[in-house]
């Protein structure tokens, strides 16, 4: 498609998990509104799956002007080829100028798949949108978050982008959009893969993006047992537990606690990092924090360059004292 063939509508794919819209999907409605407020048009949400009327209602109440549902047996389980084919049909009918997807694992696959189908282009992990005349300039990051890059999709349409989880807040919404069911079928021959099992290894929900206090541990914690100090401090502070990639690879905590380039980007009021060196891939996930406290035995650790307070010392000795002191404060 070319630019002149599109409407000014923005299509948002809102992914579902366990029958409810995922946060990243709802967050993508916000930049969609930023575009339609400037250029007119509707924010159209696409919701796919089986038995999804409740979820569609939630999306309509969350800020979509229109919700298009495709509710069918063949969409009961997610499949990249099948879902992309349904979204293709919706895009061909609605001709949106821009298509936004929450930057979940599946969103990050669907975006380039759609770009390939439409011979268009996609921006990844967008953290902000600047509306420049009629065009959307997407703010993205490169080099592990060390550089920001503003990108523009010129002619090819639709312009596709995934939004970085946590970068936009879900819309505050008073109005309620309409819900319309579309009777679409997955085209013959497009599905080349078969999902034979879906395994949930992680059951507890961790909300690092919204946490006000996060205590993180890195490889310097040395063992799963010592990592317990990080968890204990988080607990008495009423915060969440974060971790670096090595701490996760060593099995001290599950991967949904990972912070950084290939984990979550966080912006708490207080971030405490123990035994974390401060690699670029980790720092890019934490620099939005209001106040950073670092504990590291190496005086030259890069983490100190972003810390408001840096404690040079052994975390195994520092953390128990901090836990004790904070307990005293909390108990008044």
């Amino acid at each position, binding site marked *: 498609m070319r630019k002149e063939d599109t409407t000014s509508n923005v299509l948002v794919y809102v992914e579902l998990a366990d029958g409810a819209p995922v946060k990243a999907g709802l967050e993508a409605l916000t930049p969609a509104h930023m575009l339609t407020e400037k250029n007119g048009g509707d924010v159209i949400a696409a919701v796919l799956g089986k038995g999804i009327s409740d979820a569609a209602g939630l999306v309509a109440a969350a800020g979509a002007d229109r919700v298009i549902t495709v509710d069918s047996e063949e969409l009961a389980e997610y499949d990249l080829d099948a879902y992309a084919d349904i979204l293709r049909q919706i895009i061909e009918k609605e001709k949106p100028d821009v298509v936004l997807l929450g930057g979940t694992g599946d969103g990050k696959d669907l975006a380039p*798949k759609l770009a390939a189908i439409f011979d268009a*282009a996609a921006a990844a992990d967008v953290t902000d949108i600047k509306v420049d005349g009629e065009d959307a300039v997407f703010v993205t990051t490169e080099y592990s978050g*060390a550089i*920001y890059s503003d990108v*523009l999709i*010129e002619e090819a349409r639709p312009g596709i982008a995934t939004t970085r989880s946590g970068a936009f807040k879900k819309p505050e919404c008073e109005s309620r959009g309409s819900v319309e069911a579309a009777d679409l079928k997955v085209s013959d021959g497009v599905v*080349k893969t078969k999902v034979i099992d879906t395994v949930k290894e992680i059951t507890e929900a961790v909300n690092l993006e919204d946490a006000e206090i996060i205590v993180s541990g890195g490889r310097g914690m040395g063992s799963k047992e010592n990592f317990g100090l990080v968890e204990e401090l988080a607990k008495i502070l009423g915060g969440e537990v974060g971790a670096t990639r090595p701490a996760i690879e060593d099995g001290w905590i599950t991967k949904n606690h990972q912070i950084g380039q290939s984990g979550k980007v966080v912006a708490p009021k207080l971030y405490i990092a123990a035994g974390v060196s401060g690699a670029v891939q980790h720092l890019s996930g934490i620099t939005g924090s209001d106040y950073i*406290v670092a504990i590291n035995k190496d005086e030259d650790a890069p983490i*100190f360059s972003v810390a408001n307070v840096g404690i040079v010392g052994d975390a195994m000795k520092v953390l128990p004292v901090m836990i004790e002191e904070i307990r005293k404060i909390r108990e008044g």
Partner: protein
Amino acid sequence: MNILVCIKQVPDDSVEVTMGADGKPAVEGITPVVNAFDTYALEMATRLKETLDDGSEITALCIGPDSAKNSLKNCLAVGADYAYLVNNESVDETDAMGIAHILKGAVEKLVAEKGKFDLIFTGKEATDVALGHTGIYLAYKLGAAVITDAMDLEVKGDRVTVKHETEEGHRVIEAPLPVVLTVTKPAYDPRYPTIKNKMAARRKPIDELKLGDLVAMDQLTAKIRTVSEYEPPRRAAGVKIKEESEEESAVKAIQMMVDAKVL
């Protein structure tokens, strides 16, 4: 099996990139390396080759500058049997779709020489731009199945079963060959080359494919354009505490946190 691994050369990802005076990221001084996710892909392919032990061969393919021959030599030292470079120094600007066009052309050229590829590996993304698009684009252009975020795989007959990473765990996905796989960080680390393999790799040729033989130049026109690059606002470093004992340091830090009203 005939296996292809597509690799990209990127600046060493452990070095923090800053903006240069010319308004571009200053990457010239940073050691070029094979993209981390491509090293995971090559390791996965090499382990598969070793498990199958049936004379399977791995070809490494890179689109990049002449200096990327060095990266390809490193690939030859850790599992690749053949290495090809497509020199793209004549291309000013393209995007991931353009790269996928070149890769498709290169795959077709290599297929004519070596027969069909059963598996094509790419990293899930490159550490420089972190897009994660190229593998999916390439699969689409080749009309092959694609399975992303592969952590592990098993080949049985003419099918592959892949452990695909998700936020909450994984899916087990199966597809008939040929398949394009994009590889995430598996449970293992890529191997280091032995001195012997390094020496052997040095003697192996790096073959060049000519860009002009693979694509029409107008296919390389970028559809997505960078309008500006800049550094994010920097945080200033605060105070460092190093008292006689850890206990004193901790108490002092807590006092500062109380004063800053973050507790």
